[in-house]
């Protein structure tokens, strides 16, 4: 199955400078932003699902990246959000470094294969150092989308 992560990342789900300075506050801010833009119907349930997973693992995968994620029926379809933190946020990353790039992924409970594939494709994309640098230096949501589109395979 071919899945393009750029097709699931909407410009309105992109935060160029997140205000929160710690993990749970950051997740709350991203989800509230998604609720405001009508990308998520049940924000409370969504946060609960994300927090449950954060308690059981570190979604900070290192190199300044965090990918909080969950399968929950609080969303109607596979969905991505992006947030940039210039100062960095402690996501208990495996390398101990703060996360500057945060991608949030969620899917309904019954879309497990798409969800796993999106996580895999995104993790692979973000392992590329130039991509991480470009995302950190991007000026607006359209540039973020262009970077993802141009570098995903």
């Amino acid at each position, binding site marked *: 199955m071919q899945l393009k992560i750029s097709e699931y990342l909407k410009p309105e789900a992109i935060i160029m400078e997140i205000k929160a300075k710690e993990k749970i506050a950051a997740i709350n801010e991203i989800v509230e932003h998604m609720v405001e833009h009508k990308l998520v119907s049940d924000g409370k349930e969504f946060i609960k699902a994300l927090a449950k997973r954060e308690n*059981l693992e570190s979604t900070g995968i290192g190199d300044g990246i965090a990918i909080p994620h969950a399968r929950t029926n609080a969303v109607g379809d596979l969905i991505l959000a992006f947030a940039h933190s210039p100062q960095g946020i402690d996501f208990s990353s495996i390398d101990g470094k703060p996360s500057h790039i945060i991608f949030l992924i969620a899917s309904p409970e019954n879309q497990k294969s798409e969800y*796993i594939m999106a996580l895999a494709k995104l993790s692979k994309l973000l392992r590329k150092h130039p991509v991480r640098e470009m995302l950190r230096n991007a000026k607006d949501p359209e540039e973020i989308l262009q970077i993802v589109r141009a570098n995903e395979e």
Partner: protein
Amino acid sequence: MEFKRYLLVLTSETDQAILSTAVQLCKNSRAKLYVMFVIEPNRVSRLASLTHQKVKAIYDKTEENGWQLLYLVEDEAVENGIWTSLHLEEGNLLELTKRYAETYQIDALVIRKKDEAKNVFVSSSVPVIGL
């Protein structure tokens, strides 16, 4: 004897059956699960040569499959309330396994029998469960 930290070692030759077994082992002893997928450059080159494909194409496919396996384990682990830590590495399986076992104070390794298990058995300082 109860183990508190397992390291599940995965490669491109690992099948999914091993994932559930590792999760159940952790569930039974309320252990933490570290999962490492190893991309072995030698194996990638060999496969590229055998299949007449570009090394990069094989590498990319291996990496994506690796992440998929990692997130499949994680999804099942979270459903069972098990703490997990995911890692994708490139290099020598034996050396990486040894380094991870030391770094994360692993109590037992879980590895598919075919995946160099014999060598891991011989060199490992912790018990090895070959599935």
